[in-house]
């Protein structure tokens, strides 16, 4: 009997149907009472073929009365009648079919090839499985949630579609000993994933691979070797709170708790914060918030609602040198910055600039922002600039006497920046030293920026952009000489750890064109 030419690793889909001892259920062709109907058999039954291959099939008719003829028989494939030229009568009772360049199967249960009698009734059927052998799975990635389980994901081979049901099996074993194990919980995080819930060893490498099998063959991925401790992730930080920083209109304070599941393990958590304005889809990311559970966001827009999220990387578990895997982001937490001029608890009053009161008037504030924006950009000390600004403000609150002595000036002025610089506040005549912030002076806690963290790039751009744009009435012009020098040769960033107790050693920043009339 002519048969189809299966692919290199073709498997017969089914065993040939056995004789049915009880014959309570017949294969197709059970004679209908009184109809004189025929039976037929299609060969091959349920072949498996490669895409593009050919098939030779036959439909042999038997029946009552004997001498059933192949005349008038015809073929359909998936309900569509095949062209007569594809068929030919082999003998009186056999109709042959030749199909070339087969396409992939339309459904995973097989394409339905049916032999019909002249009147259209179904005499016999056979299901064709046309497809491709699986390709090697690749890109296996695995992670462990709190060191208790292992989840792996993979990509199913270069072309993916085999047109045949392909079974994927994730296997794993301890590298140095043990037997192969098979993962059992599939599709946990997508169609090509598996979850091993328990009984995993630590401090010893596993070998992990994926086997793909279908009717036309099998393929195996490369082996991935890993230690569970090197692929640990955890839950997002709980209890994320975002709040205003007094009346500071461009800042928000973010606090969170370290994930409880790993609190007993020695590791240095790294955190990452991202935030966006309410009606934006662009997140700004604050990187490398190392091992702290609070951070202050600065350079924000006043009177704006921000959404904030935090995630954790359990870096260095049990002394591992490798970074862990970032957790999911925490649920968004929202807070709004105060509006311009809105007074908050403990916030400096927005008073006119003459004689007393805070240096929070618009022009000065804008120019300070300009300065800070430039400093951040050129000095690469983003966190430094922010703390300096805080310290500057705190110092200015207590130095209003100095402010009263300062008039509008043109020309260079010396500005001492931050605590312990030994230089006076701005607005002095050139060369004069104004009142200096005392060295080693400890700032009140409300001004201490405990946990302040670097600004995001976007935020940095946002601030310096505003500075460049200048807002209203901002001055533009060339950088003062020392500032220009600093721009060419930015000073190194000093350490800020426990900086409250240590003097900051910074060059004096001299710039001109800044109105220092408070």
């Amino acid at each position, binding site marked *: 009997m002519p048969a189809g030419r299966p692919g290199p690793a073709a498997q017969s*889909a089914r065993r040939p149907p056995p004789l049915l001892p*009880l014959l309570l*259920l017949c294969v197709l062709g059970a004679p209908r009472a009184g109809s004189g109907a025929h039976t037929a058999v299609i060969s091959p039954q*349920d072949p498996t073929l490669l895409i593009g291959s050919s098939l030779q099939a036959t439909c042999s008719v038997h029946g009552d009365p004997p001498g059933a003829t192949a005349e008038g028989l015809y073929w359909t494939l*998936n309900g569509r009648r095949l062209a007569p030229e594809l068929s030919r009568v082999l003998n009186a009772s056999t109709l042959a079919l030749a199909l070339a360049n087969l396409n992939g199967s339309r459904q995973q249960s097989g394409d339905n090839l049916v032999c019909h009698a002249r009147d259209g009734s179904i005499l016999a059927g056979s299901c064709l499985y046309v497809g491709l052998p699986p390709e090697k799975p690749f890109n296996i990635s695995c992670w462990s949630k709190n060191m208790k389980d292992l989840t792996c994901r993979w990509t199913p081979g270069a072309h993916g579609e085999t047109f045949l049901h392909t079974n994927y099996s994730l296997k794993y074993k301890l590298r140095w000993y043990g037997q192969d194990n098979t993962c059992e919980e599939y599709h946990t995080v997508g169609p090509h994933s598996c979850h091993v819930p328990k009984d995993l060893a630590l401090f010893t490498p596993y070998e992990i691979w994926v086997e793909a099998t279908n009717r036309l063959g099998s393929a195996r991925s490369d082996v991935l070797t890993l230690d569970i401790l090197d692929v640990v992730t955890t839950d997002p930080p709980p209890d994320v709170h975002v709040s205003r920083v007094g009346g500071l209109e461009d800042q928000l304070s973010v606090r969170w708790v370290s994930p409880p599941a790993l609190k007993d393990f020695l590791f240095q958590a790294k955190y990452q914060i991202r935030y966006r304005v309410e009606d934006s889809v662009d997140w700004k990311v604050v990187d490398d918030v190392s091992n702290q559970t609070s951070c202050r966001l600065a350079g924000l827009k006043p009177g704006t609602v921000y959404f904030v999220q935090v995630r954790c990387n359990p870096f260095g578990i049990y002394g591992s040198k490798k970074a862990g895997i970032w957790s999911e982001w925490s649920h968004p937490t929202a807070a709004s910055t105060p509006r311009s001029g809105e007074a908050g608890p403990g916030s400096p009053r927005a008073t006119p600039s003459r004689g007393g009161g805070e240096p929070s008037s618009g022009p000065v504030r804008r120019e300070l922002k300009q300065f800070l924006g430039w400093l951040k950009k050129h000095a690469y000390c983003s966190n430094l600039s922010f703390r300096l600004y805080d310290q500057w403000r705190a110092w200015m609150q207590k130095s209003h006497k100095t402010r009263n002595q300062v008039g509008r000036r043109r020309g260079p002025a010396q500005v001492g920046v931050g605590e312990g610089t030994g230089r006076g506040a701005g607005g002095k005549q050139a060369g004069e030293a104004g009142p200096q912030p005392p060295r080693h002076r400890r700032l009140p806690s409300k001004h201490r920026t405990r946990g302040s963290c670097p600004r995001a790039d976007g935020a940095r751009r946002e601030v310096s952009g505003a500075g460049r744009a200048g807002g209203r009435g901002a001055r533009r012009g060339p950088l003062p000489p020392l500032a220009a020098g600093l721009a060419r040769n930015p000073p190194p960033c000093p350490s800020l750890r426990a900086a409250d107790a240590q003097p900051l050693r910074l060059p004096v920043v001299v710039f001109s064109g800044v109105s220092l009339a408070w």
Partner: protein
Amino acid sequence: MSRREGSLEDPQADSSVSLLPHLEAKIRQTHSLAHLLTKYAEQLLQEYVQHQGDPFGLPGFSPPRLPVAGLSAPAPSHAGLPLPERLRLDAAALAALPPLLDAVRRRQAELNPRAPRLLRHLEDAARQVRALGAALETVLAALGAAAHGPRPEPPATATAATAATATAAGVFPAKVLGLRVCGLYREWVSRTEGDLSQLVPGGPA
């Protein structure tokens, strides 16, 4: 409910005898279940043909109505039988369906492993028809119309042979067998609903 509170022999004559409220409730409940399963059976049939591929879902598709071990379609004369006999035949058919549906589900798990909904619905159908059969038996027992003596249940060997055949036969015959079983499931739950409607108080006589 050991006493006959009503009689199935002549519902019209005994209409003056009111059924106990709980029996009445049981009949209504069983009828409602049959009504629900009739709809589920129709949906199952549609879902089944979709997964077998054309020509199974095409209009005019008419495969041979293969005999299934231990279960046949309701006879044309079924409607003319006395109500108790009809209900007994319904109960017998409902008892024969679960292993057949299980056999179809196992075969479909091989042919359509990526059709979890179909597999789940086949499993649900087997469970639900068992429940309907048990409820109908309870009603029959309460009415004193349960089969006396050995009921012509499908022999276990016949059911096992069907199950084995479903596994061993070629793929196309297995698809046709599954279609036949789903069709019988629909026919018998629909028949049961119709027969029970004659018991429901206030329903058609």
